[in-house]
């Protein structure tokens, strides 16, 4: 846990133009070591999701830079960014993570379409991932036939489809009851043990205390940092 996998320098994000401008991030700098477990907390509407989107290359920063494995993604082409997301990064969001007309199995295999795993291995790999999140028996279920917690576990399995180094999760348990939440969190801890770098945005204080690193974002500024170094 020494080398830095995510380096954020003076990150600024402004949404909209003129009068409607929103300064979502106002110069945030963060370093995240490979294999660490980080939590981002803060009040609602203060820039946490924005930060995560910029780390994952879903959006371009207004200013500053994001380096993943020392490569500056703010300068990458759209295609390069897509490849990065396919191979190095897995996302889990709070709502509507899954493609609703596809089964759990198909959702995971769709992610593999964009990665580098040979087509012939897709099925076996997807089955393994479903087993990892304890849903082997739900392979052919559509999202509407799954509980919220089960859907999030499928999302986590999908995020792992191409064996990424980094998992970015935006309130993955935000709309789950505490029982489902614990189940999902246990899977996340398991996955962390396998060596993935994990960044989670959360309101769960207990989870926040178990993290290696804790970042508190308020009003677009990093106001507090705890853990490691």
């Amino acid at each position: 846990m020494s080398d830095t996998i995510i380096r954020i320098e003076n990150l600024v994000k402004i949404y909209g133009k003129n009068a409607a401008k929103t300064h979502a991030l106002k110069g945030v700098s963060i370093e995240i070591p490979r294999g660490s477990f980080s939590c981002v907390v803060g009040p609602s509407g203060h820039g946490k999701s924005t930060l995560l989107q910029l780390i994952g290359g879903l959006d371009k920063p207004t200013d500053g830079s994001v380096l993943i494995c020392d490569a500056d993604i703010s300068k990458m082409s759209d295609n390069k960014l897509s490849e990065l997301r396919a191979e190095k990064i897995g996302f889990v969001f709070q709502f509507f993570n899954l493609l609703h007309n596809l089964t759990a199995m198909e959702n995971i295999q769709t992610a593999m379409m964009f990665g580098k795993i040979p087509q012939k291995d897709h099925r076996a790999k997807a089955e393994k991932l479903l087993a990892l999140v304890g849903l082997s028996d739900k392979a052919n279920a559509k999202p509407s036939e799954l509980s919220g917690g089960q859907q999030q576990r499928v999302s986590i399995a999908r995020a792992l489809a191409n064996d990424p180094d980094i998992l970015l999760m935006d309130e993955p348990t935000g709309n789950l009851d505490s029982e489902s939440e614990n189940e999902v969190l246990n899977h996340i801890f398991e996955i962390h043990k396998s060596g993935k770098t994990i960044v989670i945005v959360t309101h769960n204080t207990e989870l926040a205390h178990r993290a290696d690193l804790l970042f508190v974002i308020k009003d677009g500024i990093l106001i507090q940092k705890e853990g490691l170094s």
Partner: protein
Amino acid sequence: MNIFKLVAKNLLRRKGRFVFTLLGITIGMASFVALLSLGGSMRGEVTRQADALGANLIITPKNWCAYDQISILTGNSLPESLQYSVLAEVSAIPGITAVPYLTQTTAVQNRPVSVIGIYPAEMLEFNDWRVREGNYFSSRDVRVLVLGSGIANSFNLNVGDTLTIRGENFPVAAILEENGNNDDTAMYLPLSVVQEIFDVGEYISYIGAKVENIAETESYIAAILDVVNVSVTTDRQLLSTVLSMLGSINVALQLIAGVSLVAAAFGIINTMMTAISERRREIGILRAIGGKSGAIFKIFLLESGLYGFLGGILGVAVGYVVSIFAGPMIAESGMGDLLKGAAPEASINAPIIFAAIFLSVAISVLSGFYPAWKAAKLTPAEAMSYE
């Protein structure tokens, strides 16, 4: 999982919309194919009949319009406006054999049939007629009928039957062998008899003429125009007039079909735009898990292209069936004289089928271009942002 499976699953998720959009392009293609094949068979039929035209020259009154000239091909009733005396003057020119036609209409079993007044012996030779059964006219004033084979067949008439024309009963004396042109679809009386019962006096409809030396056709025409004030066409000219008229009918038909295809194209655009705004969040997910904008473009373009492919196949099938049923229906109506006996299936062939399916795919891919481009240019963050 692959892109085709993904597209197929997307297409079928809104079954109602899928069906209606598909119907749009199917109807467009069906009308296109049906009209094309009807146009084609009309053209084929005119060419076939013109091939069988017996005369090299057709002498008509000066004031005839193109419709009258078409009627010569179709055997419809014609104005009796050429003076009978013209025939003698034309026949007097050396090297010309001329025969008169006086075309009138009567009804057989309540359906219109042409009755043509002729010079029996001259006509037999002029058109190379052969008698299938019975005895052909014995003189220029016998009051008996000779039937074309098509008339005999379709009304199931035999030698010895009697038909009533203008209140007078005429026995059928003979039936001609099939000739392959519209001689088959008329019945014949001596010229003087038709003049008398239809009360037209000393007039005929037109004159058919053969020349001794075809290479000199132009000078024969000049000679005719020298002695009488008429208009003279060659059957080749007549054919090209008719074909050019049919050409404009075809253009009109294809324009109608074109409009329905444009409407279908907008149906596809509409469906795709709706699908994209509904699936915005999904586009975001696909982008977040590594889908390139090119992949999004491909997914939506394939989706609309599939409409065209399926619609094209269905449209060709429906259009083919329609043209089979519509052909005879049109043949019953006025315009259908050009279509007598025309088989529409003759003008639907493999190249037309492939061209139609290709056209359909091309239209729908083109329609899908803008929506697919809209979807592809959404940034992942835009697509993810929940409304």
